[in-house]
């Protein structure tokens, strides 16, 4: 990348390192870090939306909907999350292909599940076998985001359901006394107030989400774990201008530090946010703030 990098053999020490860390392959690593950040940025709101839907459904007065909501937030109990990750990626992929198959090839004569094969017509393949590489990668990423959102949505549903129940009953009764409908009470009184109760749970969830991102590797995405293994492995002088031994240990140490720093920063930011939200609330935290000031 730098002008002095043309002949790596003459370089030493820090200059060598600066050239080594800016090779094309390392750019792949840096891009994958961005991928992780994008995943977090997309998954967090989507999961929150799923969770909100789940929690609302769990409070519904319509019984099957309530079952659906409770069942959704219960699926994550008792089963390892990575089993879900592996399950949903295949299951979602097959569900999409099955749907497209039903729409696009209605008169396909053969069964879709033939013994140990899953066969859909050519036009229903996702992504189409003719589409370019980036479409395949984007589709894989999309599936990963959806999987993350479903799993974390279930966690979020749990947290939000608890938060909705933590809002003092008197608040809702007051709203009813003012003649608000159930819907109005929900949107105008319950939802604005539940966040302060939900925040500890949600910030915990955010930490967990950060720590779940390396699982992308299991979903077949070229993420940081993939690159750390790829780049850290022993490389012979014949294949590269930067030969080195087995450095995977150092690459994973770097990942470890990256995650620790990320968690630490999140912790500080979330603490600040919590302080802001508790300000003036009728909770122990809000009371403590008021006393500290007085």
């Amino acid at each position, binding site marked *: 990348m730098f002008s002095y990098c043309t002949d790596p053999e003459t370089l030493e020490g820090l200059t060598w390192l600066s050239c080594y860390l800016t090779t094309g392959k390392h750019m792949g690593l840096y891009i994958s870090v961005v991928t992780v950040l994008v995943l977090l940025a997309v998954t967090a709101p989507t999961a929150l939306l799923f969770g909100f839907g789940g929690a609302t459904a769990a409070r519904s007065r319509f019984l099957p909907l309530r079952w659906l909501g409770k069942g959704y937030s219960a699926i994550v109990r008792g089963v390892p999350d990575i089993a879900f990750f592996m*399950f949903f990626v295949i299951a979602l992929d097959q569900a999409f292909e099955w749907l497209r198959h039903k729409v696009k090839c209605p008169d396909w004569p053969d069964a879709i599940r033939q013994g140990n094969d899953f066969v859909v017509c050519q036009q229903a393949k996702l992504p189409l076998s003719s589409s370019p590489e980036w479409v395949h990668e984007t589709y894989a990423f999309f599936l990963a985001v959806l999987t993350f959102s479903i799993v974390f949505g279930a966690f979020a549903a749990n947290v939000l359901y608890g938060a909705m129940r933590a809002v003092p009953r008197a608040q809702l009764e007051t709203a009813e006394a003012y003649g608000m409908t159930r819907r109005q009470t929900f949107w105008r009184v319950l939802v604005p107030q539940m966040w302060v109760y939900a925040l500890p749970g949600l910030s915990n969830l955010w930490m967990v989400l950060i720590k779940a991102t390396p699982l992308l590797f299991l979903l077949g995405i070229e993420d940081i774990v993939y690159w750390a293994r790829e780049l850290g492995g022993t490389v012979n002088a014949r294949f590269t201008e930067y030969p080195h031994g087995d450095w995977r240990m150092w690459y994973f140490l770097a990942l470890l530090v990256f995650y620790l720093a990320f968690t630490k920063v999140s912790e500080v930011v979330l603490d600040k946010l919590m302080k802001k939200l508790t300000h003036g609330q009728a909770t122990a935290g809000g009371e403590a703030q008021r006393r500290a000031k007085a």
Partner: protein
Amino acid sequence: MSCWDTIQAYALRSIGIGERLLPREGYDLCQQFTLIGSGMFWNIYFGIFALLAGFFFAVALAVGKSSHNPLLRKPAEWFIFVFRGSPLFIQFFFAYFVFLTLKQSVPFLGAFTAAWLGALVVLFLNTAAYSGEIFYGALLSIPKGDIEAADAYGMTGWTRFRRITFPTMLRLAWPAYTNEAIFLFHATTLVFFSGFPVLKQQGDALYYARYFADKTFNPFIPYPILAFYFILLTLVIVGLFGLINSRLNKHMPKETRTKVRFRPNLIR
């Protein structure tokens, strides 16, 4: 092959007893149930030993973190932060490659590159950090009156810790610790996906579930079977820990007993 034959051939496959090759055809329910169940050996092995060893280390960490002496407090704080702040998945990878590097200079440490020991060490340290934080929280919430009463009786140091602090800490921490145990067992499924090699296809439950999912291209059978086994395991853990919990709470009036509540927001 009848189902009984399958069970004889594969029930202990994960620890190397029975048929050498994994099933190559059929993939019927019986095969899947047997082989995935056989993989549970590894999950249970990792879970139990990490939990047992981790418990003692966790108590030490909690006491260290609540100590006034910075020489004890700082290391405990850092240890807990490092293991709780980073993904277990990365910890596995890092540890594996550290052991691999160490093996080159100290061949004696070669055993650590195998999952049965290396992954166990990582899980042990990890669960110690998580439980340490739980116990630390419990130490902070021991009722002031209990300690004052102990002081009034003239108890100090080790006696006070053994008779008052430790039992109360354990009682207060137990519900959270139950969850920690459940999630530790769930975390054991990560082992064989994170660097540690599977020797002779002797893997854990998820390894076999994925084997079947890859072979049949049908995730709707192996993963629910895996889920079934894990739900069973979770129920057993909840039952056992519930027994210990009621023992710990025996002397308490009914309404002030700590209850085990399942709080599923912990992935590592």
